[in-house]
C-alpha cells in the first residue's frame, strides 16, 4: 500500500527530476536475469569436486574434499564424476536436487593473463580479446538489445564495467538502506542544478532510487533489529535484491569478493567453505524471496578464472584458468552438469597447471540469452560480437 502510494507520488515528481528513463520501467512479463560475479577467482575444484579422479586427491593432499561416503564433511554426489562442496549441501545442493541448479565445468575465457583485473575486465566487456573498447560492457549491450524488457540495475556501490556504455544504468548498494538524506524539494533542487551537465541522469536517478529504496526497506530496519542473527552479509542483501527484482527490475548484477585463496583455504571447513556457505545461503534466500517469480528467473554465478589444480606450498591455490559456472532458476533444466568435458588428469590440464576452457563464456551465455529472451543471431552478435552461441538447453 505505502509503496504503491509512494510510486505514484514519484511518478508525479518525475518531470521535475528530469529524465530517469531507466527507473521504474516495470516491464510486463519478462524473464529476470541476475549475474553474480565472484571476484578473486574462486577455487572451482573444491566446489565442483572431480571425485572420480585420483589425480584430484593426489594434487591436494591437505585441502581436498573427501569422497562422498555419507559423512557431513564429504562431498555431495551430483553425477558419476562430480560432487558438490559440503558447504553448499543445504543451499545449492537442495536446488540441484529439484533440478533448479546446473553447473558448467571447464568454463571461462581465452584470456590467459591470469591477472584478476585484466580477466575480470575482459569478461565484463565480453568482447573478442583483440578489441579494447574500455567503456563497453556486455550487460549494457544486452540491456540495449532488450530495450524495454531490460530494466537493468546493479546492486553495487559503483557501476560495474559490464554495465558501462549502456546509457544511464542505475546502481544502488543494498548493504545499508537508511533514511533518505533529501526530501523531494531538495532532490529536485539538486538534480536541477545538474540539468545541463553530463552527470544529470546519474544525479536525478540516484536521488530517486535512494528515496525509493529507503521507503521499500523502511520496515527492514526494525525487523533486522529483532532477529539479527542472519541479518548480515550477503543473505540479507540477496533478499533485498529479490524484492527489487520481483517488482521492477529484470536485469541485475551483484558481485561478491573474497575468493583469492592463496593461503590456508581449507577443505570441507575453513575460509573457502565459510565464503561458500554465505553465498549459498544468499542465493537460496534470493530464490525463496522471489516466490513464484523464481520460475521465471535465471541466475548465473561466474568468476574470472579457476585456480591451480594442485595446491601450492601454503595450503592454498594460485591463479589458474578454467572455472565452473553455476546456473540457477526455478524453471531451468537443471540437475545436471552441462557443456563440454574432459577427464580430469594431469595430461588434460592446461600447461600442466590448471583447467582448460572448453566452454567459452561468451558462447554459453549467448546460448542462454538466446533461449531466455528469444534473441536472434543479429541481436546476439551485438551482445557478443564474433561469438557463436552454444546452446546448452538449460532454459
Amino acid at each position, binding site marked *: 500500500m505505502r509503496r504503491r502510494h509512494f510510486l505514484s507520488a514519484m511518478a508525479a515528481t518525475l518531470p521535475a527530476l528530469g529524465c530517469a528513463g531507466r527507473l521504474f520501467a516495470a516491464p510486463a512479463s519478462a524473464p529476470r536475469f541476475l549475474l553474480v560475479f565472484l571476484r578473486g577467482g574462486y577455487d572451482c575444484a573444491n566446489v565442483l569436486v572431480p571425485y572420480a579422479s585420483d589425480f584430484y586427491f593426489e594434487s591436494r593432499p591437505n585441502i581436498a574434499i573427501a569422497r562422498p561416503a555419507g559423512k557431513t564433511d564429504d562431498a555431495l554426489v551430483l553425477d558419476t564424476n562430480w560432487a558438490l562442496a559440503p558447504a553448499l549441501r543445504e543451499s545449492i545442493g537442495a536446488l540441484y536436487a529439484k533440478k533448479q541448479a546446473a553447473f558448467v565445468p571447464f568454463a571461462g575465457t581465452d584470456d590467459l593473463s591470469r591477472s584478476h583485473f585484466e580477466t575480470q575486465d575482459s569478461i565484463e566487456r565480453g568482447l573478442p580479446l583483440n578489441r579494447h573498447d574500455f567503456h563497453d560492457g556486455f550487460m549494457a549491450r544486452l540491456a540495449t538489445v532488450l530495450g524495454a524488457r531490460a530494466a537493468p540495475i546493479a546492486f553495487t556501490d559503483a557501476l560495474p564495467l559490464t554495465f558501462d556504455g549502456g546509457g544511464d544504468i542505475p546502481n544502488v548498494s543494498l548493504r545499508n538502506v537508511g533514511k533518505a538524506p533529501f526530501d523531494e524539494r531538495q532532490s529536485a533542487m*539538486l538534480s536541477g542544478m545538474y540539468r*545541463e551537465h553530463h552527470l544529470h541522469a546519474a544525479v536525478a536517478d540516484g536521488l530517486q532510487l535512494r528515496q525509493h529504496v529507503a521507503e521499500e526497506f523502511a520496515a527492514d530496519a526494525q525487523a533486522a533489529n529483532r532477529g539479527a542473527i542472519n541479518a548480515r552479509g550477503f543473505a540479507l542483501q540477496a533478499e533485498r535484491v529479490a524484492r527489487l527484482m520481483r517488482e521492477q527490475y529484470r536485469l541485475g548484477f551483484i558481485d561478491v569478493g573474497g575468493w583469492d585463496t592463496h593461503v590456508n583455504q581449507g577443505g570441507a571447513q575453513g575460509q573457502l567453505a565459510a565464503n561458500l556457505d554465505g553465498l549459498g545461503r544468499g542465493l537460496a534466500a534470493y530464490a525463496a524471496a522471489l516466490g513464484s517469480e523464481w520460475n521465471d528467473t535465471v541466475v548465473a554465478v561466474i568468476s574470472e578464472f579457476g585456480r591451480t589444480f594442485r595446491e601450492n606450498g*601454503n595450503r592454498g591455490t594460485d591463479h589458474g584458468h578454467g572455472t565452473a559456472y553455476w546456473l540457477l532458476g526455478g524453471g531451468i533444466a537443471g540437475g545436471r552438469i552441462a557443456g563440454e568435458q574432459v577427464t580430469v588428469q594431469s595430461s588434460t590440464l592446461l600447461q600442466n597447471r590448471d583447467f582448460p576452457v572448453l566452454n567459452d563464456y561468451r558462447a554459453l551465455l549467448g546460448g542462454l540469452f538466446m533461449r531466455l529472451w528469444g534473441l536472434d543471431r543479429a541481436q546476439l552478435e551485438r551482445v557478443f560480437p564474433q561469438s557463436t552461441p552454444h546452446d546448452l538447453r538449460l532454459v
Partner: protein
Amino acid sequence: MHASSTPTCCLIKFGVITLGRSIKHCLAATACACLVAAVPMPAYAAQANLSRDDILWLGRITYGVDSASAAHLREIGRAGFLDEQLTARDDRLPAPIQAQIDAMPISTRPAAGLLADEIAEQKRLRAASDDPDAKTAARQARNEDGNAFLRDAMRRHLLRAVYSPAQLKEQMDWFWLNHFSVFARKGAIRWLAADYDERAIRPHALGKFRDLVMATLTHPAMLQYLDNARNARGQINENYARELMELHTLGVDGGYTQHDVQELARILTGVSVFVKAERPGRRMLQSDGLYAFYPARHDFGDKQLLGQTIKGRGFAEVEEAVALLVRQPACARFISHKLAQYLVADEPPATLVAAMSQTFQRSDGDIAAVLRTLFESREFAASLGGKFKDPMHYVVSSVRLACDRGAIADERPLLGWLGTQGETLFGHQSPDGYALVESAWASSGQMTRRFETARAIGGNYANVLACSGDTKGDTPRLDGALYALALKPYLAAATRETLEQATSAREWNAVLLASPEWNYR
C-alpha cells in the same frame, strides 16, 4: 542508446561533452556579466590578483584551495610555489595538529614491537582455551585494539592531507599508498598500516621510484598482504611476484610472461616477516627487525627474468631484479600514465605520457622530476577544472574550504564519509587500489552518497567543524572570503539559481558542496 534513454538525456549528454569545457564556457560568460553589471568585488578579492586559472591550478596542485595557500601563491607566484611543492620544503603542521598526532599511540609505539606482539598474541589466542566462543571473543577484542590503532593511522593521514602546507607531497603519499595498496583487515596489517605509510611510503613520495618499490617490498604489511612472507623454496607462492610486475612496475601489458612470474617468485623466496624465534638457517643476511631475508628458505639457483640471467646469490638477486624492472621502458610508461591519470585527466594525452616517461628514464625514476614535466606541460594547463574529484579529494577539499585552517573538532566523521563513498584508507581488498577515473566514482548511487557528505559538512551535522572562534556545532560559513575569491565568480547559472533557492544556511552550504563546480578540480 537504443529505445530506452529519453531524447532529452541524449541531447544534454552530447551538448556538454566534458565539464572542463562547459566550465570554461560558463566562466567566460559569467566574467563578462560581472564586468558589465559592475558587481562590487568583495574586499578580499580586490587585493587579489589571482586569475581563474591560478585558482584552478592551485586547486590541482593542492588538495583544494584554502586562504593560506591562495595567499602564499599570490606572494611567490606559480614557479616558486611549484618549486616548494616539488621539494616539500615545508611540511610542518600547525602546532595543535602536530600535538594531536604526537599524542597518538602510533607515534610512540615502534612497529617492530607491535609486530612481535601481534605474532605472539595470535599464537597465544590459538593455543588458548578450547571454548570456541571464548576464543572468538578474545580474538575480536584483540582485533578491536588493532582497529583503534588503524584508525589513528587513517586520522594522521587525513590530518596531514587537510593541514600540511606540503600539499603535493600529501597527495603523492595517498597516491603511492594506493599504488602499493595493502588491505588492513588481512593478517597483522591493521597494526602495520601506520608504519607502512610513515616509513615505506611517505619518505619516498617525491623521491626515487626504485626506493618506493624496495621499501614496500621489504615492509611486513606488503609481505603479509601479498603472501610473499610465505614464499619459500619448494613452497612457491607467486601472488606478490605477479602483482609486483602487473600492478607495481610494468603494467599488465608490460611484456612479461607467466614464466617471468614464476622466476620472479623464485627470486623473492626467503623475503619474509621477521620472527624472532625463527632459525635463520645460515647467517641471516638482511633484517631491520620487521622484515627478514632467510637464506634457508631461498632458492639459490640461477633465474631468467625478462630475458636476463640473475645469478643465484641471495638478497642481492632481489635488488637486481627490482633494478631491472624499474629501468624497463614499460615501467616508465606505466607509472607516468598513472601519475598523469591522477593529476591531469582520465585519459591523459599520449604526448604528455611520452614526455614524462622520458624524464622518468633520464632521471632514473625521480618522481619529483617526472612531476615537474607534468606540471609544466601545456597538457596540464589545458586540463584544469576537468578532473572529477575522487572521494578523498572531495572530502579533504571540502573540509579545507569549510574549515579554512580552523580546527577540526573531531576528524573521525571524515573517515566515515570516505567509507560511505567507498574509498576507505587501507580499505581496498584487492591489490589494484582505488580507480582514479570519473566513471569509477560518478555513478547514480555514488553521486547520492556524495551529496550526503555535502549535507553533513554543510550542515555540520556530525559536529566536525569547530572553525576558529566558533562553538562546536555551529553551521560553517561557506559564503565568506574564500568563496568570493575561488568560487563565486565562476559558478554556472544553474548553480547560482539553485543556491538562491536554498532556505537555510545549512542547505546553501550543502548545495554549494554538491555543485558541479565543486566536484571537479
